[in-house]
């Protein structure tokens, strides 16, 4: 039998369009317009999942985004998604969903034994039980996570596309119920740019499900007209299926639009979801309110749902969730649902916590044959996988206790209504302040911080008549404040059969003495938090709301307590006998509802995650099989393997080629800054530790930069191109940082200095040729006189190289005779290829960053960021030679005399040679005072660079060692991860060509 709970007529589903779907492996039929929840209820499926902690049977509590119980695993394979609310899933052909948190099945769930062991699972159970020993937590956690989890994450990569949209508008209205629609109409008629956001597939909100009249005519037709007019306004953009997720400073909102989630096939042209980033001059919040559950024993059984949800299933989807229905309420408005159910053929009994009932309501109940138990409460429910019986008892409000006989009612559906809570989440995110309203017993907006209005039931205002006119006027007023013309006000007369009345929140009052024993009075359905847990938290001293929340986990689920928060606070207020305002509330944070990470990432995935920077020779490297390494965003050749060489073989070959003949390195990624201005030399004197005043045109100088703490933060060679014109180079990774550093001081400290900095990193391609044959090689390709006398070491010359205008610097990072040839970037590959061709007779060998590192380590040249880590001074690096004693001031100088920087036992930069002449120490290894079997060991330093040196035939290492300069020749020990202990001898840092003859050739 299919759709056995569907009413004969009614509802807005399209009964001509059946839709096949699968739940827990079983096929069902729903109709177009159904949600998964309504289609399941129509097919008499009430058991949807198992609860988080006790694995209790759970059904469908609500009909909207606040749903805590009916969360399912949706879809299969790479597209599967956990924790999706069945109440929001629009049915599509072939949909597959399954229950979560149960094994082997939702009907027979092993974990349900937790329910019978619940006495030992109170709030704080895990904290108390798995505390000792601390090291075991990771072991326990594995099993706890498994037992107390929700759905499963997909393991494959998500194949869908997500997009982001930046949007600027005059007014954003959140919520497409009656208030939001009328505000949009008021603002829209005024002509300003309006964005209306609603999370549902259909506009209209609450009024879609209830009967009402406007000017004494059918309200639904009027509502349709309003929506039609809005659709026709070019200045109004309407986003349906879009949830406002975050509300940040200066009216910045984020919203998630479901674009194709509800489609049968995923589109190849449309994204699955679109993430909106909205900046709005004004925001009008009109999100409405959530109905509040009542707290009684076993209030969580399938078949127990909110009255408004019952109303929606019946009137929107034509689904009668039960035939013998009990309405448990503390307010009049819920009686509308009772009447609706009777009309569609259900037998209804009302249990009302109050003793006074509106006369007209009373009359109508009598005429519809509805039994009303006044001053009664539901005290217990029964039914294994669905409610089948309840117990009720009279309430003595004065004595605050139950009295009289316990009566039984057989039922298949309990509708409950404990009043309404405005959806203040976004308002609170915008730092709006809340106050507790004693008339409607809930938190309502008080003080607005942003340029914002909040209207309708979202503002605690539930009267239809007042909301109609005030909402429309709020829209007009907002437009007015943005200097748009006023439009005429309209007066509508709106009527509901029963107006909202005030409700008392008495969450558990009834039977409070027994509350901690036996059955469970659920406050937070998703996290299985009961009234007893809230009591326990108070007894154990977790009295602040924030502590109660974290200790009990109330309000911490994927629903973030949309149905539970106010009840928890009301209960705390009762326990402490304090007004709720004094109890306060927890902080609301984005996102408003769970959202996909994919949407936040948008298109910034894979290749688009981070820009890739490539030099002008990059394609040559690719064609010649370079292995690349990422240096910041740059792609740099790591090494160039030939035949089947591994990295060690390739690096060895490349190193020896440079030492013996000729190597070529693409050094284009080095940071390059062009400095010009009459104060450039003065500026360099302040920025670098050494002196620059006497540098001649055509000369280069190595410089070290320190921050004001005296710590090294970059280095490089700067050359004087002309009077007042310098070319500065920086490390590849430090280029942007150095540029900012220069700008900072020029713009904030030395405003009178006339210096201009321009980043020219990408304007120049740099070909660094190095090796004893480099002069011979370059001689044939340039008009520059390369003779030792006319172009010595640390000089710069301009001329032509391969017919291209070039700047050639005679500087060396390898210790060999070297030339750094800079040509305009667009000629980079041309010159590179000419070099490769002409260099054949010298066996010119392209080398990568690894060979560069080995060669410079053999010479003891530091790499800032590898050998230094932001905590070392020039003195620590044995580089006092580059710190001027004469300059009165430069950045970092003052800190060199701080007591900490002059300390003798600071770590110093030394070389290490392993005694076995074969172990390459892993970089990062510790040098210890004495090697023990296991830590702790007293540490003396660490290895910063370590390589096998092909030139020398044995490994070399650079290290930071405590008081290292006075330990030359001494033995140290380095324990490795594999248990081996390596002995090494402390040396200076230059391993090859100590006199520096080779680069002076």
């Amino acid at each position, binding site marked *: 039998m299919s759709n056995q709970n569907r009413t004969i007529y009614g509802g807005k589903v399209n009964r001509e369009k059946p839709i096949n779907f699968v739940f827990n492996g079983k096929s069902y039929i729903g109709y177009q317009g159904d949600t998964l929840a309504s289609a399941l209820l129509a097919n008499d499926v009430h058991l949807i999942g198992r609860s988080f902690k006790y694995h209790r049977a759970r059904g469908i509590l609500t009909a909207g985004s606040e749903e805590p119980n009916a969360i399912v695993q949706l879809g299969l394979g790479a597209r599967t998604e956990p924790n999706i609310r069945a109440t929001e899933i629009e049915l599509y052909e072939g949909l597959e969903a399954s229950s979560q948190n149960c094994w082997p099945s939702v009907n027979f769930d092993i974990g349900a034994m937790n329910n019978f062991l619940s006495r030992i699972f109170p709030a704080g159970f895990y904290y108390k039980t798995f505390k000792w020993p601390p090291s075991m937590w990771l072991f326990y956690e594995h099993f706890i996570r498994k037992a107390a989890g929700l759905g499963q994450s997909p393991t494959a990569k998500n194949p869908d596309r997500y997009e982001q949209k930046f949007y600027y508008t005059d007014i954003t209205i959140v919520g497409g119920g009656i208030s939001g629609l009328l505000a949009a109409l008021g603002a829209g008629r005024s002509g300003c740019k309006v964005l209306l956001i609603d999370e549902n597939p259909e506009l209209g909100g609450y009024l879609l499900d209830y009967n009402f009249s406007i000017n004494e005519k059918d309200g639904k037709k009027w509502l349709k007209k309003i929506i039609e007019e809005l659709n026709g306004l070019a200045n109004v953009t309407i986003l349906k299926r879009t949830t406002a997720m975050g509300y940040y400073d200066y009216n910045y909102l984020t919203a998630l639009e479901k674009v194709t989630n509800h489609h049968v096939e995923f589109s190849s042209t449309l994204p699955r979801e679109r993430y909106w980033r909205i900046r709005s001059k004004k925001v009008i919040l009109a999100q409405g309110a959530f109905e509040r559950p009542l707290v009684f024993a076993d209030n969580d059984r399938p078949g127990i749902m909110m009255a408004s949800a019952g109303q929606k299933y019946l009137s929107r989807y034509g689904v009668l969730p039960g035939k013998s229905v009990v309405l448990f309420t503390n307010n009049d408005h819920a009686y509308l649902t009772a009447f609706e159910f009777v009309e569609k053929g259900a037998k209804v009994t009302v249990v009302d916590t109050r003793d006074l009932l509106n006369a007209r309501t009373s009359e109508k109940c009598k005429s519809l044959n509805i039994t009303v138990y006044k001053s009664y409460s539901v005290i217990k429910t029964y039914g294994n996988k669905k409610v089948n019986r309840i117990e009720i008892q009279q309430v003595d409000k004065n004595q605050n206790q139950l009295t009289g006989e316990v009566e039984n009612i057989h039922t298949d559906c309990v509708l409950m209504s404990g009043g309404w809570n405005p959806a203040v989440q976004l308002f609170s995110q915008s730092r709006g302040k809340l106050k507790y309203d004693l008339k409607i017993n809930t938190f309502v907006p008080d003080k607005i*911080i942003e340029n914002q209005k909040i209207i309708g039931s979202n503002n605690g205002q539930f009267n239809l008549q007042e909301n109609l006119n005030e909402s429309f006027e709020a829209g007009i007023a907002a437009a007015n404040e943005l200097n748009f013309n006023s439009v005429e006000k309209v007066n509508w007369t709106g009527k509901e059969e029963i107006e909202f009345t005030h409700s008392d929140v008495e969450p558990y009052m009834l039977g409070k003495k027994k509350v901690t024993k036996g059955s469970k009075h659920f406050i937070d359905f998703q996290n299985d938090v009961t009234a007893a847990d809230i009591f326990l938290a108070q007894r154990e001293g977790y009295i602040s709301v924030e502590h109660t929340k974290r200790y009990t986990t109330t309000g911490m689920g994927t629903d973030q307590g949309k149905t539970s928060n106010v009840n928890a606070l009301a209960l705390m207020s009762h326990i402490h006998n304090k007004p709720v305002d004094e109890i306060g509330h927890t902080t609301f944070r984005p996102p408003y509802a769970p959202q996909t990470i994919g949407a936040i990432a948008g298109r910034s995935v894979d290749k688009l995650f981070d820009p890739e920077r490539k030099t002008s020779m990059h394609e040559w490297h690719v064609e010649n099989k370079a292995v690349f390494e990422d240096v910041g965003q740059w792609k740099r050749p790591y090494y160039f393997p030939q035949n089947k060489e591994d990295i060690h073989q390739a690096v060895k070959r490349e190193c020896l080629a440079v030492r013996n003949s000729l190597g070529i390195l693409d050094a284009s990624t080095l940071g390059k800054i062009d400095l010009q201005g009459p104060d450039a030399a003065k500026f360099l004197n302040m920025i670098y530790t050494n002196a620059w005043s006497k540098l001649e045109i055509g000369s280069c100088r190595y410089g070290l930069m320190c921050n004001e*703490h005296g710590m090294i933060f970059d280095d490089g060679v700067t050359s004087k191109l002309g009077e007042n014109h310098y070319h500065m180079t920086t490390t590849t990774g430090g280029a942007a940082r150095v540029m*900012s550093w220069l*700008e*900072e001081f020029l*713009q*904030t400290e030395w*405003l009178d200095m006339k210096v201009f900095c321009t980043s020219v990193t990408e304007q120049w391609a740099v070909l660094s040729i190095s090796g004893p044959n480099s002069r011979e090689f370059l001689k044939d390709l340039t008009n520059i006189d390369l003779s030792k006398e006319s172009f010595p070491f640390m000089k710069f010359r301009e001329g032509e190289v391969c017919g291209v205008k070039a700047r050639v610097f005679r500087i060396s990072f390898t210790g060999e005779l070297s030339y750094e040839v800079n040509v305009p970037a667009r000629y980079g590959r041309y010159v590179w290829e000419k070099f490769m061709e002409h260099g054949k007779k010298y066996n010119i060998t392209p080398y990568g960053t690894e060979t560069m590192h080995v060669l410079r380590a053999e010479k003891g040249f530091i790499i800032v960021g590898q050998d230094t880590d932001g905590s070392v001074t020039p003195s620590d690096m044995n580089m006092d030679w580059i710190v001027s004693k004469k300059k009165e001031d430069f950045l970092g*100088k003052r800190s060199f005399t701080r007591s900490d920087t002059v300390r003798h036992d600071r770590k110093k930069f030394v070389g290490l040679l392993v005694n076995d002449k074969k172990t390459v120490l892993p970089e990062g290894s510790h040098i210890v005072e004495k090697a023990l079997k296991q830590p702790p060991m007293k540490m003396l330093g660490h290895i910063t660079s370590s390589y096998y040196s092909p030139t020398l035939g044995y490994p070399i290492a650079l290290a930071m060692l405590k008081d290292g300069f006075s330990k030359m020749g001494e033995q140290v020990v380095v324990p490795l991860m594999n248990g081996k202990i390596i002995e090494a001898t402390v040396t200076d840092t230059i391993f090859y060509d100590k006199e520096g003859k080779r680069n002076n050739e």
Partner: protein
Amino acid sequence: MFIINCPYCGERDQTEFTCHGEAHIARPDNPSEISDEEWGRYLFFRENPKGTHFERWTHDHGCRRWFNVMRDTVTDQIIKTYKMGEAKPEISNE
């Protein structure tokens, strides 16, 4: 997410800017003559007020200029932005 009025470019989204902490801390003219304590004060000590704060920002993804921002740390309202070198505005008592 603020909207910041760059004194050179006008109103732009916060993502274009970087904050660099408290403003109006001048580098001492004579570092070699001052005590460790005074130097330490320049390097490390900051106000962190509740209320009006003066801070340095850069328009990195724009004109790359440094400027000062007067911001209320409680409400996050930016009261004023002004160029480097301009006088520190008075804090009104309203």
